[in-house]
């Protein structure tokens, strides 16, 4: 199979655009196309829980995105990723919900799972359309799933979840318990993505304590660690000129955390959230965070920055973020880089880095 052709066909197309990765006029993977017919995030709309843990089919895209930094009993560091994407091929109002043909469902689900060690990176992908009982998100108890991959809560809430995925070379089965509150990103969950006002609804649960087992080609490994869940939905999160983003979720050794991102367009747009040790969150004003790529690595024929300098003067923060494994490339239907990072400099810690549009 030719990865780039599938890329062209599926992911780009799912978002109604024929471009795969790279810089383009309508943003990474078409996320910058217009939202006609779909609902658009509005500021000052309070998020409601547990309802908002479930899917929002009236918006074009949505994801349940969990990353975790883990340490094995063998002393090795590991990173895992579990993501369920939802994409609507057309606005829900046009969907013939009563159509006897269950195959004409316009909701497409895509699962990505990754497992990164210092030497290796494994990933796999699942695709299904909605309405078949193979993929979706159920409310009570909370359960996001595709095939046998799942993120299952004990109730409608997501403070205790079980996480499972497997590919042809790896698997993981993890228990996650949150020891802090949900964090609403941006302005009470309304996260602006460009100077033109493109935005998404965005909240996180960055306080998961994790225990579980990884299955590697070399055998099983017991692990413990920390996880971070991002929930985001929108219909046009990028401006047309934005080609991709670099997104950091960092966990410092003093208990504070930071989410920061930059969107690369004609101008660089940066934003983020500072999370105190007690879980209280402060939005970072656009532009206060500066990011500098220090060095790049050739991965799958692309130059990907795998060492960064992040500066946040208002918090006296000047750190270097470096990939634990520079080859953490997700060569899926739409390719991107996603992997664990180590933090050094004015603060130390660990975290996850996601880079798209390279």
């Amino acid at each position, binding site marked *: 199979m030719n990865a780039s052709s*599938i890329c062209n*066909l599926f992911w780009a197309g799912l978002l109604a655009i024929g471009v795969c990765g790279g810089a383009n006029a309508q943003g990474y993977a078409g996320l910058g196309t217009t939202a006609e017919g779909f609902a658009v995030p509005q500021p000052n709309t309070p998020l409601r829980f547990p309802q908002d843990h479930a899917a929002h089919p009236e918006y074009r895209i949505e994801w349940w995105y969990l990353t975790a930094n883990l340490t094995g009993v063998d002393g090795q560091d590991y990173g895992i990723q579990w993501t369920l994407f939802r994409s609507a091929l057309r606005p829900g109002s046009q969907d013939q919900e009563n159509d006897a*043909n269950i195959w004409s469902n316009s909701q497409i689900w895509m699962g990505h799972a990754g497992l990164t060690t210092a030497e290796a990176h494994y990933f796999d992908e699942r695709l299904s359309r909605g309405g078949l009982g193979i993929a979706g998100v159920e409310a009570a108890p909370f359960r996001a799933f595709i095939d046998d991959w799942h993120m299952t809560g004990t109730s409608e809430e997501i403070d205790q979840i079980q996480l499972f995925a497997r590919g*042809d070379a790896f698997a993981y089965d993890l228990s996650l318990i949150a020891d802090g509150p949900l964090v609403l990103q941006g302005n009470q969950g309304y996260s602006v993505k460009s100077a033109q006002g493109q935005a998404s609804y965005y909240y996180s649960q960055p306080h998961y304590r994790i225990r579980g087992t990884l299955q590697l080609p070399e055998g099983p490994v017991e692990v413990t660690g920390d996880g971070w869940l991002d929930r985001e939905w929108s219909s046009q999160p990028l401006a047309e000129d934005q080609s991709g983003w670099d997104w950091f979720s960092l966990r410092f050794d003093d208990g504070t955390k930071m989410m920061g991102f930059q969107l690369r367009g004609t101008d660089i747009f940066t934003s983020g959230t500072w999370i105190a040790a007690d879980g209280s969150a402060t939005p970072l004003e656009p532009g206060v965070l500066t990011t500098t790529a220090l060095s790049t690595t050739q991965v799958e024929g692309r130059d990907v920055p795998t060492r960064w300098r992040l500066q946040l003067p208002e918090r006296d923060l000047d750190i270097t973020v470096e990939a634990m494994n520079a080859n953490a490339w997700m060569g899926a239907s739409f390719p991107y880089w996603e992997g664990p990072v180590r933090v050094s400099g004015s603060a130390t810690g660990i975290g996850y880095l996601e880079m798209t549009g390279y």
Partner: protein
Amino acid sequence: MIWAAFATILSHWRRHKLQLAMLVVGLALATALWSAVQAINAEARASYAEAAGQISPDRQDRLVGPEGQVTLAQYQTLRRSGWQVTPVVEMTLGTGNRQLELIGIDVLSNPLLADLMATQDDADAPQTGEPSTAQPPTPADLLLAPGRMFAHPETQFPTAPAGQSWPPIIRSEQVPRGLGLADLSTVVAMAGTPDRFSHLVLLPNQPKGVPPLAEITPELRRQTAASGADTAQLTESFHLNLTAFGLLSFAVGLFIVQGTVALGIEQRRGLFRTLRSLGIPLKTLITIIFLELFAITLLAASLGLVLGFVLAGLLLPGVSATLSGLYGARVDGSLTLQWHWVLSGLAMAVGGMILAGAQSCLSIAKLPIMAPPAAAARGQQACRNHRRTAAVGALLLLGSGILPVAFDGLLAGFVFVGALMIGAALLLPWALSHLLRFGTQTARGPLAQWLWADMRAQLPGLSLALMALLLALATNIGVGTMVSSFRLTFVGWLDQRLASEMYLTIPAREDPAAITDWLTENDVRVLPIRHSDERYEGLPLEVYGVADDPTYRLNWPLLDALPSVWDKIAAGDGILINEQFARRENLSPGDQLRIASDWEAEVLGIYSDYGNPHLQAIAGLDLVVAKRPSISNRRFGLRMDETQIAPVRQQLQDRFDLPATAFINQSALKAQSLQIFDRTFVVTAALNLLTLGVAGFAILTSLLTLWNQRLPQLAPIWAMGITRRQLAWCEILRSVLLAALTAVLALPLGLALGWALLAVVNVEAFGWRLPMALFPLDWLRLLALALLAAAIAAALPARKLSRLHPADLQRVFSNER
């Protein structure tokens, strides 16, 4: 000067239009036969190549349900337990050449579409009456109504089912002909069964640690993917066969050319002498002759290519039938002009012409300027050459005798056949010469003695044509023996296989039990014909269950078996396999064989199964039903008294309201099988006849070549009182006698060829070894045909002779050179 010489040489053809026509026709025929075979081969190969380059829905393992269907619930169960499977719906719409196979796939999870899109650049212009073709589709186009359908540019769409219309069609060479590929949402809308699939495709990379299929969906069966490699090997040998035939045809055609060219040069000997006396250098003369031949060749080859194209078009359906009948390989019935066979045709024609012209030019080069054209003397010299060619021929025959002992395989078979044929052809003049000497010695009366002696004298001039006849006759006998042996075996085998007096297929709406009960009450033995479709290493494998009945014990054509094989089959202790299966896997009775993932059995015996391109096995009915409980039970063989057939059928129809199509009489089935068989070999028969025709033509040209040399020899006989009419009859008799002698020599050669085809080539090409049967009546018919051809070939010179003015004969004496 050169132009003048060239024009002078060319002027010969103006005066001998028939001869020119013969040269052109001979070369055109040779080119036509060769290029027709090449065109057929090229077309078939292009078809395979195209098929290999196309998406193939068969290349992955699949899961199939007991009733040929998989449910949505089973699909969900598999996906939710981690198995990477993707559903496929297949349905057929329309009839005849407007029949369309629709395949619905889940474009999200099936890699087929990605393969297709990888090379899909632009959409072709829509055909009339079809919905317009869209630009490269987005997933939304494919997934949401009306969807898109992928089809080959030449695929014709039948009328859409009532109340529905075809989605926009995207034309792609990647899709096999006669197939429409679309997302499930599109096909399911037409099929109306969203929760039923034809099968599930198992994707290549399955996750680690998923529960075994037998636990989660025990009712589904796994079938392995088709490989298709065997077909390629088999069809390759078939094409080698055809190529050999084409080469033979060309060789036979070349004899004509050789004859005509020799004639053209022979007749112009005086002219050449004059030209050379006038100062044309030998080199220039030979160059001019070759230029002339080259021009004629181009003309003839072009004609031959056109003729070959037409011929290939006529033969191709037969070849397609053969290939699909014997190997299951599909070849399209249409022919396209391909440059490489055009070039090969031209090259063969030019090469052949050079070969044929070289000998004649050599004789001119050797000719002393002033030497008289003493035909007889050169003839005698040729006679001495007999021994040399005979020695080469004998060596070749000797070599061919060693080949089959020393080497194995198809190529050795062909080399053997080639050496045998050429060796025998080279030996022919020597052998004929001896036969004729014997004839001369035993002849009574002066006229008979003269006739024999004259024949011997003419032998050098006719030997090439007679070699052509020998090859044509031997090929006819050899190939005829093969096909007839095959047919005889096939008929005998059909008698064994189709032992039941009548075959009954019960329609789905009827209850089989009620009908079979009634039949049993009426003294009809009911033999269920039940089979399960399995896959063995990706190839289709049919496993039949047979009841314990004398029909099988008495009739089944076993090639090899363990003792008391039928008792063991009845007890479920093992299986029988067909010869193809045994040869492919090199199995013999007593071996263990795994015919499916959950089914291992001992091979108890091997049976012949001619004409079946697929693997097949037979097991006891109880065993098959135990292994595959859900196989359908609607076909039966009915054993009864001959006289009962009509009444039983009538009563069945009346009582159970069965349609006429539910019954097949044994005789009808046999006729149908034989029809398929005969269609398979129609190409061989056509090529055979053509070759013989060409050989007859070669004799005609040779006799015409000899015509001018004949007069000096005939004139004295005429002067002694034999009438022109008698002499004309002698001409015909001579030709017929030579043909008859050649035919006698062709018989052993043909039988040797037949043996080689059956024992060596056939086993490699078809996968079966056949007993050789002899058909003396066929030989007689062929002999008659050869004599007729020789008589017709001699008729023209004979007629010319009988009408010859006495003055012309007299002139021989006054004008003796």
